[in-house]
């Protein structure tokens, strides 16, 4: 008699964060193998670009990663700017950095909530959404919408931030540490949480590098690579911050790194707010997006997004439409490494480990 159960987890399943399908082979509760099947959320983001002008494609970029719209937006704008050889005004860069860091906090908050829901705790989800709600309201006030911002434009940002808005950001970053300490009280020391995450899903540094895993997952494996620090883009070179890193390599380390990263982001936001309050600039963008003449060439921009390295490759042939746009997103590589992490664990660790990797499907399939 065949004792091995072949279980199709997904594509419709409450905790595959969208439509991921995991073909799992189980012996009782023990996982023998996992094979992720991606592509259920493929929207042809790269092909869409080839039929649209640079400006037309700009709002679509936000949809690549709906939890980190500012990152994808920045990567695309940055690539176009580099192809055009234009400088971005410093104030605009600071606004961009501020937005990206707030977005990172929002993204990590949502990850924390859903991760805890995957583990079975319901309350942290609501607390995280409560705090994320504040960030989204701030974004709504700044950009006009809660998730699809269309705020970064080629060469800068669409409009300036008001002092009133900056004050609201300051009051938010003053309140968030209190909430984070609440989460830590509920989660960090909890023996059940420790039991579910300690030494589960160990991602060795070599494996991580082999699978080109980046972002918090890589930093949790003890490899100190943060593109904000290693190859500073935007104005990250001007601000002080520390890279969060852990040597534990397990799910718990990934949790710790992300919590630490939220605090780091708060530091950066604080410095950006200080700069924006004291400095002003006449321009926020120096180019007219309507009549773009992009010379022939290619460029790959890079952003340290909340889910790892985000690349946007643009090849231009001089026509108004891009010849080729290629996205490299962090989640795609995190999904690939999942089978290595869960081999030999129990079935309920599959969900816990998968949750700890912070994968969102639109970013994987694009």
């Amino acid at each position, binding site marked *: 008699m065949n004792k091995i159960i072949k279980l199709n987890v997904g594509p419709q399943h409450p*905790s595959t964060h969208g439509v991921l399908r995991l073909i799992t082979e189980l012996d009782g509760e023990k996982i023998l193998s996992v094979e992720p099947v991606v592509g259920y959320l493929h929207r042809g983001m790269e092909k869409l670009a080839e039929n649209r002008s640079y400006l037309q494609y700009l709002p679509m970029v936000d949809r690549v990663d709906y939890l980190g719209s500012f990152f994808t937006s920045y990567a695309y704008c940055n690539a176009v700017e580099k192809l055009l050889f234009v400088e971005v005004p410093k104030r605009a860069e600071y606004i961009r950095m501020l937005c990206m860091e707030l977005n990172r906090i929002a993204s990590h908050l949502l990850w924390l909530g859903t991760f805890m829901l995957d583990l079975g705790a319901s309350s942290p989800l609501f607390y995280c959404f409560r705090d994320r709600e504040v960030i989204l309201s701030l974004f709504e006030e700044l950009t006009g919408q809660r998730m699809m911002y269309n705020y970064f434009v080629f060469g800068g940002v669409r409009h300036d931030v008001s002092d009133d808005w900056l004050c609201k950001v300051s009051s938010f970053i003053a309140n968030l540490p209190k909430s984070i300490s609440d989460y830590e009280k509920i989660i960090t020391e909890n023996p059940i949480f420790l039991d579910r995450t300690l030494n589960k899903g160990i991602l060795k540094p070599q494996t991580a590098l082999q699978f080109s895993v980046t972002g918090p997952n890589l930093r949790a494996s003890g490899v100190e690579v943060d593109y904000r620090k290693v190859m500073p883009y935007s104005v990250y070179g001007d601000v002080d911050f520390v890279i969060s890193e852990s040597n534990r390599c397990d799910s718990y380390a990934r949790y710790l790194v992300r919590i630490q990263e939220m605090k780091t982001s708060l530091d950066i936001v604080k410095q950006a707010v200080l700069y924006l309050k004291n400095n002003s600039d006449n321009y926020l963008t120096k180019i007219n997006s309507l009549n773009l003449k992009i010379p022939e060439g290619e460029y790959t921009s890079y952003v340290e997004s909340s889910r790892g390295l985000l690349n946007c490759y643009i090849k231009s042939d001089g026509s108004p439409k891009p010849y080729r746009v290629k996205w490299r997103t962090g989640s795609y590589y995190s999904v690939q490494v999942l089978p290595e992490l869960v081999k030999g664990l*129990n079935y*309920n660790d599959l969900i816990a480990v998968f949750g700890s990797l912070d994968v969102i499907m639109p970013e994987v399939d694009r």
Partner: protein
Amino acid sequence: MNYLYFLYIQFLLNHNIPKIFGDITFPFIPFCIVAAMIIFVVLVLVLLERKVLALFTQRKGPNRVGPWGMFQTIADAIKLLCKQNIDILGSDKFLFNIAPIVVFVPVMMLWGIIPYSSEFVFMNFSVSVLLYISIAALPVIGIILSGYASNSKYSLIGAMRSGAQIISYELPIMFVLLSIVALSSSMNLKDIVYSQLGEGAILCWHVFPCIVGFIIIFICMLAELNRCPFDLPEAESELVAGYNTEYSGMRFALFFLAEYALMFIMAAFLATLFWGGYLPITGKYISEIFFSDNQFLPVFIYFEQFFWLMIKTFILVFLFMLVRATLPRLGTQSLMKLSWYLLLPLSMINFIVIIIFKYFIEGGVL
């Protein structure tokens, strides 16, 4: 019950109805009361749970149907009743249909053995505790049946988990129950309540000598109820809905009903064993102060006793809900470890300590 029986026969005789009619119909009255109470209590509990969970997460909970959302569960129940019963292809029809009943009937039987007040005991056996142990383990048969008959892998895994869980958590419960039996020198629940009556009021409750036992049995009850953090059989983030994944409509409603009815009755059982059952928290009946001259004083006291039991039960239910809101789900292996390595030895030690306590403090075991 004798007093009520006497009143009932008296009432019938006054209307010239023969005694034999009363003898036949009398047993149906408790059945009807229990059935009505289950429906009512479950409707209240479901609403209460949603409200309490909302309370912990700064939400308002259901507030649309009726004032304070009071008719929400009634609306839900009507919806469930009207829904189609979906027959699963390849399922074992007979077992599939009978499983919800097998789960529900033992729960209903359990409602009969609790002394709601010194007169309202529907099944007053001298070995009620033993009866409880044997009946409380029955629903798991229905759960395993449902998992086996559903022809679904999620259901099967959920059912197997449930079986393993009940087996490991029954044993500590029995040892704690034994220590209670030793403390009160009886297996009759009414006698157990009487043994907690004394000058010290609250201090005479069994929870004080047997505090370790209370914590153990509280944890084990959570496990028997399949509630968080022991909700592995129906872990929604892993197994979709566990053993009742394939159920819909009325059959699902029976599972739901059984779950909440069992939760309430286990809380009542705990209150009876440890918190003095229907004895007043104040030490003295309030009715004795207000209605001391009234000829219906005994009736008032019966209702007051019922009231006290309800208060204690709902405090315990509230604790169940607080635990659900906070803790993540245990892992499969640590679930077993917790029971066999910690709770079982601890409950044995507790049993021995209680016997020694009983022997030296109160003199004699029996």
